[in-house]
């Protein structure tokens, strides 16, 4: 079991309110991602759940019991840190065994679980090494192994992949995803990378300045962002947000159109502009189009074979059924 409920939870550091009172429920077995720009309070929120920081007001329930005043050790949660936070003086085996040793689990059971975790995480050959002798990816796997063996009611991940290089990151992302499918344990995952959030989450919580901007499945956030902040944050490349005349034409203060919802052609489109930078990814090409009279730059995602060059004049056709409309406060107009 691992249902986590936050009720009116707030956090102040001195006089600065980092997290104004918020409510949130994370269902048992769910993979929830906290995402937001740096300094949005996502890590703080995770640390409040972990018990590493005391909350200023409100309460935290884990499986229905009040855990607000419980120390981290008593909450039955496991955490994987950005810096891995392995014990450098212990071998991999001892690192993984540590939480079980603290819990007083007998040696035979400890060995059984270590073997099992090591096999699942490809660490069997490294059990007698120290963290210093491992690569970044291996270290992260040890950190995950250490979390698994305690059989926690929920896993907390604090930007676990941001110290890894890009290729490794994609691999580890899949591994964590598979781990979740296998264990079906609640996982809360903090990241500033919206791609990680989109690919891994059952549910995404978008945070800005300690305030929850929207909670939903990845596709809900993609299709119906509740405001301009979520619209701009979710999706890559970013949604084009246009104000002024073009927006008023659709009875809105701001309209948004995603780069993948604009078609390019030599002529005949609704808008026109000049290609600034063309990024060829092979599968796709991103055009950054200037001189449209609508915004500084409009980003367009076109198929890989479309081959306009820097300086070409092109026309753009937004698919109007995919247009997002927002009012003066940035809120979505249904």
């Amino acid at each position, binding site marked *: 079991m691992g249902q986590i409920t936050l009720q009116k939870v707030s956090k102040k550091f001195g006089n600065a309110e980092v997290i104004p009172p918020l409510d949130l429920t994370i269902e048992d077995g769910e993979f929830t991602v906290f995402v937001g720009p740096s300094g949005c309070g996502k890590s703080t929120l995770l640390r409040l759940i*972990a018990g*590493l920081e005391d909350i200023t007001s409100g309460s935290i329930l884990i499986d229905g019991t009040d855990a607000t005043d419980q*120390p*981290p*050790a008593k909450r039955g*949660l*496991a*955490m994987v*840190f*950005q*810096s891995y*936070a*392995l*014990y*450098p*003086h212990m071998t991999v085996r001892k690192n993984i065994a*540590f*939480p079980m040793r*603290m*819990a007083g689990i007998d040696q035979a059971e400890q060995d059984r679980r270590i073997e099992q975790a090591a096999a699942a995480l490809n660490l069997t050959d490294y059990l007698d090494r120290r963290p210093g002798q491992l690569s970044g990816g291996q270290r992260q796997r040890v950190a995950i192994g*250490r979390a698994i063996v*305690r059989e926690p009611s929920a896993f907390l991940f604090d930007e676990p992949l941001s110290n890894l290089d890009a290729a490794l990151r994609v691999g580890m992302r899949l591994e964590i995803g598979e781990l979740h499918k296998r264990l079906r344990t609640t996982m809360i995952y903090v990241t500033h990378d919206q791609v990680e959030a989109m690919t891994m989450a059952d549910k995404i919580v978008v945070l800005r300045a300690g305030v929850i901007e929207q909670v939903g499945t990845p596709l809900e956030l993609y299709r119906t962002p509740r405001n301009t902040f979520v619209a701009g944050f979710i999706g890559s490349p970013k949604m084009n947000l246009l104000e002024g005349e073009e927006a008023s034409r659709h009875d809105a203060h701001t309209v948004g159109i995603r780069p993948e919802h604009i078609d390019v052609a030599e002529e005949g489109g609704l808008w026109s502009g000049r290609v600034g930078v063309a990024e060829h990814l092979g599968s796709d090409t991103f055009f950054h189009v200037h001189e449209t009279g609508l915004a500084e730059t409009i980003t367009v995602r076109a198929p890989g074979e479309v081959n306009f060059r820097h300086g070409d004049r092109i026309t753009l056709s937004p698919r109007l059924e995919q247009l997002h409309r927002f009012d003066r406060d940035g809120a979505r107009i249904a």
Partner: protein
Amino acid sequence: MARSVTTRRKIINTALAWSIGLLIFFPILWTILTSFKTEATAIANPPQFFFFDWTLENYAVVQERSNYARFLWNSIIIAGGSTILGIIIAIPAAWSMAFVPSKRTKDILLWMLSTKMLPAVGVLYPLYLIFIELGLLDTRIGLTIVLMLVNLPIIVWMLYTYFREIPGEILEAARMDGASLRSEILYVLTPMAVPGIASTLLLNFILAWNEAFWTLNLTAAKAAPLTAFIASYSSPEGLFYAKLSAASTMAIAPILILGWFSQKQLVRGLTFGAVK
């Protein structure tokens, strides 16, 4: 990038370093040399350096006149005891200062250090009376406690600087892994800080070993360590330089040897944290 140094400069630097080193070491060297001279050669003018009749006579006399082993044993007990006791008290103190600092932590640290600026003789009288009252005068336990207290600020400071180098996330990981405060300090913090703790132990052992003010004033015979043993040779019935030197050499030899073998650890300890 390495800075290029001309050969001439290298020679000058080396010569300078050696002269300063010799200057610092000279008193010790002279003491050791004098201990092998006769009393007459010891006070000869002009002084004689290496070409005199080397003799072990002084050591024999010192050995005969006083029980070196007893003084040595007292020194080991007092220096070792005060250092270990100090570490046991300082580890939790430094832990709290390094990892859960309050607004006043810096003030407390400075205040602790400021007690080292107080001339020891300023508290001699009250401490002496307390010692009489408690029956601690001329006891090893009394001296151990005093030396522990005298060195405690330095121990806490040193450990504090080492602990600050340990990433807090590792201790948080221990907390998440279910470690109690005791287990966290015992199984995670202390083993990680072993190099720092070792050099702290070493330095404070040396400081306690060399401490003379309190050992001379608070002991008479039973608990007297090697510092008192040396002092007993500067007697009013006349100066016996050679014998005094022999006693000094015997007193500093153990710590000199210890320092020699652990110099790597000492240097590392003293410069720890200066570079990442």
